[in-house]
């Protein structure tokens, strides 16, 4: 395939430099959007220059973290990657990552590592022709934007049907919505959790896809790990969880410190110390391991890469603010929020909470989902809760009906102002504080505190 002209690359690059200097954001996707205007197949052209091809990762939850874990493993393997690490995961973001990697008109780097928005996955896969496609989970999320889950799963099925035989498809065996998508491909690689000691006693309210996609019968679960992920079978024998070749066989969690996991692979077991908390991050680590296995990376690189994992932008990121540590944890849909709540509810000491619920397009304009998340887990564990964001009052009402004493609830829509007040109060009470923003509230907060020098800038890594 022909390359992209140096002139077009240069124009798009200079726009990127200007938008970053202006400090107004948009630098992670604007240059790529412009490049795509100048050359509509720029993603295909530039990614074809990558000698090892590309890995495409999609999921409702955990794609940024999974890509970052895999990036850490690839770093240990000394494979230079082109990675949309800032999380801009639609066409503009992918094109920007490729553009940023060009030098003298040529893409520098061996392998593309792209996390991709669910609704954009089919288009990006068609353009990048990845060597590895990792689909990690599908949960109820922003139905106003993505539509119904079944529709998305059907479109992914069609996408997989059009892939060349050599593409390695990596699927979550524990997700009944995804596991069936690999049935026709002999080289499908499955990952999952076989240690059931952290399983939920019953599926949570938000669990989706509890029904067989073929006959409609309710699936029988031997264990529910989180959401609708687990060990399941159709009672009519239509379908059962495939045996994962990459499996977490032993999981020991250590609260907010992280987990120890043993991951079995066809090449033998790998012991890992994962420094990020929660069972959801165990899933992310096993998914990254499966992709690394598909890329023939070594066990040493995998365990070393996972152990060196750092929290990514707003995903259990700890900030020091005025000598006080604040853990930032993105919430965006019921299953993701449940896993964050489950992780912090395990803390033995009391804590304060700041929750920001925005309803902008990137958050999903429909805030109904807060009634599906089990905020009841917080009752009796939390000191003071500040509710912020464009729909702060509705968040507060949700918490009141989750059994939180109304006297503990503070409502203030302004993100930065409410955050400062919440931190000041928690410093006074000497309690840790968890900050749970939706996506655009996270961006707003992160920008505000980076300006004051309390956190590394969003652009720190570019």
């Amino acid at each position, binding site marked *: 395939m022909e390359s992209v002209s140096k002139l077009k690359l240069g124009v798009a690059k200079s726009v990127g430099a200007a938008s970053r200097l202006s400090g107004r954001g948009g630098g992670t996707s604007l240059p790529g959007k412009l490049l795509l205007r100048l050359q509509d197949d720029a993603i295909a052209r530039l990614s074809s220059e990558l000698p090892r091809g590309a890995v495409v990762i999609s999921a409702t939850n955990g794609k940024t973290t999974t890509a970052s874990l895999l990036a850490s493993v690839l770093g240990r393997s000394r494979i230079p990657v082109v990675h949309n690490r800032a999380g801009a995961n639609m066409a503009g973001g992918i094109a920007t990552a490729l553009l940023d990697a060009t030098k003298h008109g040529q893409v520098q780097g061996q392998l593309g590592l792209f996390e991709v928005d669910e609704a954009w996955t089919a288009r990006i896969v068609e353009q990048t022709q990845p060597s590895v496609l990792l689909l990690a989970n599908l949960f*109820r999320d922003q*139905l*106003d934007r993505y*539509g*119904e*889950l*079944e*529709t998305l799963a059907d479109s992914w099925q069609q996408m997989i049907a059009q892939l060349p035989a050599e593409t390695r498809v990596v699927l979550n065996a524990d997700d009944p919505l995804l596991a069936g998508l690999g049935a026709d491909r002999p080289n499908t690689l499955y990952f999952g959790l076989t240690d059931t000691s952290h399983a939920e006693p019953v599926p949570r*309210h*938000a669990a989706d896809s*509890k*029904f067989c996609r073929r006959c*409609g019968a*309710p699936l029988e679960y031997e264990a529910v790990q989180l959401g609708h992920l687990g060990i399941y079978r159709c009672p009519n024998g239509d379908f059962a969880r495939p045996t994962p070749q990459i499996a977490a066989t032993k999981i020991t969690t250590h609260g907010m410190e992280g987990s120890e996991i043993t991951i079995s692979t066809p090449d033998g077991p790998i012991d890992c110390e994962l420094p990020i908390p929660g069972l959801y991050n165990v899933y992310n680590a096993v998914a990254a391991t499966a992709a690394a296995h598909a890329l023939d990376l070594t066990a040493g690189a995998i365990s070393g890469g996972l152990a060196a994992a750092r929290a990514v932008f707003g995903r259990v990121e700890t900030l020091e603010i005025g000598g006080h540590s604040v853990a930032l944890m993105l919430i965006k849909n*019921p299953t993701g929020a449940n896993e964050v709540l489950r992780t912090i509810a395990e803390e033995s000491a009391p804590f304060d909470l700041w929750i920001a619920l925005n*309803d902008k397009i990137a958050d999903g*304009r*429909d*805030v*109904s*989902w*807060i*009634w*599906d998340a089990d905020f009841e887990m917080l009752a009796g564990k939390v000191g003071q809760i500040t509710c912020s964001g*464009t*729909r*702060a*009052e*509705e968040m*507060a*009402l*949700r918490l*009141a*009906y989750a059994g939180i004493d*109304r006297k503990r*609830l503070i*409502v203030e829509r302004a993100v930065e102002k409410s955050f400062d007040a919440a931190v000041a109060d928690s410093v006074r009470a000497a309690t840790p504080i968890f900050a749970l923003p939706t996506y655009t509230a996270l961006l707003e907060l992160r920008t505000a505190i980076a300006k004051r020098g309390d956190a590394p800038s969003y652009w720190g890594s570019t």
Partner: protein
Amino acid sequence: MNDSPTLRICALYPSRMNIYADRGNMLLLQHRCEARGIGFELTASEAGEHVDPDAHDLFYIGGGQDSDQIQIAGDMLETKQAALAEAAEGGKVILAVCGGYQLLGEYYELADQKVEGLGIVDLRTVREPGERLIGNVMIEFEVDGSPRVLAGFENHGGRTYLESGCPPLGRVLKGHGNNGKDGFEGVHVNNVFGTYLHGPLLPKNAWFADHLTRLALGGDIELEPLDDDLEDLAHESAIRAAGGGSGLMRLTQR
């Protein structure tokens, strides 16, 4: 209804028809009953289970994906249609939301099939070409002679048309409503309520939860006032999201 009444709710197909967090409605009704010393009983009726129209005061059916609706529609006709028709006739409260609302009518016509509905209200739903109708929505109707506002969120591919003589629930102030054309939203016949305001509409409109509770308990019961500061703020927040002004907010103050 004298001393210690109980609100007896039957939730239809809650394991399937729950996609937009319909559980919020049950939570709201339950907590408000408990705060007032009213008993609360929630029964689920899933596929294959018959319903006793006299054993419940309020029937609820929520939203589901098209595939869920198709799965339950046949069972609903077989095991629940007669009981629900009798309940509707007898003045029981039925609240049907989103996908559940579509199933109240004669049929829901999709591209490749026609799903037969309960036929207890005179409406039809058709999946027409074009975008789904998505967004914040606000409707107005009169309750006991005073105008009231319901605010919420709608997300539906089907367009619903009421037969002449079949009254809507309200008039659309903001958003799309039944079909994005005639300015009507929902249906309201006797004590049967259908609406596209999906999922947790009662948390956004606590007054409507109380209205339904009153109707379900016989209509002449006085409900003890609660500390509703947060409920009122949440209602105003939903109105604001739909683009409603402060005048409407004043209108909704009790």
